[in-house]
């Protein structure tokens, strides 16, 4: 048992640091402060600083580091995966792990080879498209979907209410109709992975649907932190060719993407808060930051165990839930402390476009901090175990009680 890196891994760490220093611009760091805001990171991926960063990753062969080398990935072991994430977190550089690279890509990698599949994988690897997953429906038993307002329908869309999304075979393909909600990053998505019942087949399937296809309508679901990436969708007779029905069995859960290390980014934030507390001589803030630093240390240790420990499968599943719940709770506490330490600066919320030319009200760091605190409130209600996924803390605890305790 040891924490120190072996010489080859230390050399790898130095290599990653040099790469980040060469390709990540500090002035774009604000865009990297999106721990938890995966969908927003997707949206921001097309701004010039991030575009340059992702292009550098593509050129270096690190844009999909968690895929196998033969698929354009790296074949890194768990230690290098951890080192890569840790360095990026410490430097503020965005991690190339999102819905497209973390979930959709691995699904497509298991599909039979075809020109379409190869093109889509290459687009993901090169960060040329953004995918979202449209699975939840307003009347699902899924507690998350139930969070959506009942019977909300996009005005004028013509989509039937209280109807499950259905794909009706027609000619050489399907016609897809229905409603989806809680589509993370959906507002900026180019392509959707939509789950729908197949009429007459007594089964469901995953369909690839362009977000701008005829008959697809979407609207934002505004979030507390003024995140504009969450969307609900309605589909009215959307034509889908048969080749865009994936082989992936909907009864099989979507692939679990690699663990997203949260502790490094939280620690970086807390170190800053600790320094600020020292400078302002506020013992309560200092004590709160120290308490959270210990919590983050425990989170880091949990993450390392999840990556490196050879444990039983059931236990690892339990650990993933512990990480999701505790990560969300600690993340919320850090964001709340950050906002609290702003004092009155945490009150202005000039987030509307009409204020964009008004300049800063008070502290320039305040608005991102307040937005993060508000978003993390939602994030701890729905603790994501993986990017693009979300489950309420209560549902995760139910699952843990079943899987770990046998209730």
């Amino acid at each position, binding site marked *: *048992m*040891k*924490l*120190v*890196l*072996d010489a080859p*891994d230390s050399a790898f760490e130095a290599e990653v640091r040099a790469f980040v220093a060469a390709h990540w611009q500090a002035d774009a760091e604000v865009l990297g402060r999106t721990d938890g805001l995966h969908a927003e990171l997707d949206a921001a991926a097309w701004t010039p600083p991030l575009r340059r960063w992702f292009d550098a990753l593509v050129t270096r062969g690190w844009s999909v580091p968690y895929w196998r080398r033969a698929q354009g990935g790296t074949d890194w072991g768990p*230690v290098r995966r*951890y080192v890569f994430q840790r360095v990026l977190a410490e430097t503020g550089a965005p991690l190339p792990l999102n819905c497209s690279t973390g979930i959709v890509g691995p699904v497509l990698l298991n599909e039979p080879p075809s020109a379409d599949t190869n093109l889509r994988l290459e687009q993901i690897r090169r960060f040329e498209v953004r995918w979202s997953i449209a699975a939840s429906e307003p009347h699902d038993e899924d507690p998350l979907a139930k969070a959506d307002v009942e019977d909300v329908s996009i005005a004028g869309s013509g989509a039937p209410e209280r109807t499950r999304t259905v794909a009706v075979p027609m000619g050489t393909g399907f016609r897809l109709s229905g409603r989806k909600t809680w589509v993370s990053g959906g507002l900026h998505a180019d392509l959707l992975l939509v789950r729908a019942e197949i009429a007459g087949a007594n089964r469901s399937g995953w369909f690839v649907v362009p977000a701008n296809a005829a008959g697809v309508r979407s609207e934002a679901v505004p979030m507390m932190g003024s995140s504009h990436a969450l969307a609900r969708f309605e589909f009215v007779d959307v034509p889908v060719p048969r080749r865009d029905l994936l082989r992936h069995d909907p009864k099989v859960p979507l692939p679990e993407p690699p663990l997203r290390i949260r502790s490094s980014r939280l620690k970086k934030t807390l170190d800053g808060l600790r320094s600020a507390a020292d400078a302002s001589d506020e013992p309560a803030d*200092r*004590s709160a930051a*120290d*308490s959270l*630093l*210990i*919590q983050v*240390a*425990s989170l*880091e*240790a*949990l993450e*390392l*165990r999840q990556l*490196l*420990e*050879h444990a039983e499968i059931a236990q690892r599943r*339990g*650990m993933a839930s*512990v990480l999701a*719940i*505790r990560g969300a709770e600690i993340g919320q506490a850090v964001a709340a402390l950050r906002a609290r330490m702003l004092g009155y600066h945490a009150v202005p919320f000039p987030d509307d476009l009409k204020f964009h030319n008004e300049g800063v009200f008070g502290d320039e760091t305040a608005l991102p901090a307040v937005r993060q605190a508000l978003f993390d409130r939602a994030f701890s209600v729905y603790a994501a175990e993986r990017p693009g996924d979300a489950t309420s803390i*209560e549902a995760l*605890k*139910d699952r*843990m*009680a079943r899987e*770990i*305790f*046998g*209730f």
Partner: protein
Amino acid sequence: MDFSFSEEQTLLKDSVEKFVQNDYGFDGRQKVVRTTQGFSSTHWSTFAELGWLSVPFPENVGGFGGKAVDMMLLMEQLGRGLVVEPYVATVVLAGGAIRVGGSAAQQAAYLPGIIDGSKQAALAYAEPQGRFNLADLVTTARGDANGYVLNGLKAVVLNGPAADFLVVSARTSGGQRDRDGVSLFILDAKAAGVSRRDYPTVDAFRASEVTLKDVRVGKDALLGAEGKGYPILEQVIDEGILAVGSEAVGCMEVLYKNTVEYTKTREQFGQPIGKFQVLQHRMVDMFMEHEQSKSLMYMAAMKMDEGYGDAAKKAISAFKVQVGNSGRFVGQNAVQLHGGMGMTDELNIGHYFKRLTVIDTLFGNIDFHLKRFGAL
């Protein structure tokens, strides 16, 4: 970076685990703690035979040459068994002080007796006015041509009643709370001028108030350099924290697992109470607290094995804070979910709870270590 255990470490863990499962039942433990001595000499001999008493000591005195991770694994299992034998007091604290600060002659004189189980020992470091400050000493050691004369009162000397020898902290120079001027001495527990008032502790261990009145020792009783005992003491206490913290992690595992099993069988309103979601979620919280503590236990042990410095001290204090918070949560909820029976001495739950409560206080509580963590 590696989170796996060596074959030797796995064997050590399995050995203690097997003993706890097969030979250390709760009823037997309760009989032992009601005796005057408060622990079993037979068990202690078994510990010696199995090599557990040698774990932290160097091979040149017959030790196992183990590291912090070895100690962590052993103590976690002892915690699961709620073992009351004075392993921490004798091996980790008193033996540790001699291992860290003792000369080769002192190690050769005292450590073999600990390793073969023939000698009990205690570290007398705390004083009534000192709270958790190891340097806050009014006990004095006045030097003269023949050695030193010690006077003072040492509080909560763990395993004091059974100790054959004591390692005592005393001030040889400086002010009451100065770190410089703290010295450590080894003295016979029955030396002239040493008197004890023995008592049981909340967790059924044994401790003493030890009064030192003109206790004369030779120069060879000095452990380390005169006035330079504080760093030795600090390291040994941090090793003690790793030991009792690991023990606490073992206690927490038993508590949450026993609670889960209890709620599967205890029925109310026509069904097992474990079917109630509010109780299931409480037990999941207990599980998570245990996992967080276990994770920081690993980090603290690995940091200690990297070398004793500020990083290790910080990891130890973080671990102690986590164990204090988690131990309280898990202990209190285990009692709560066991209902009235959890309050009785007939179930083991309350005994684990009491041990966790004492561990929270030992070597500095949550507040003390949060402050230390922030200062490092």
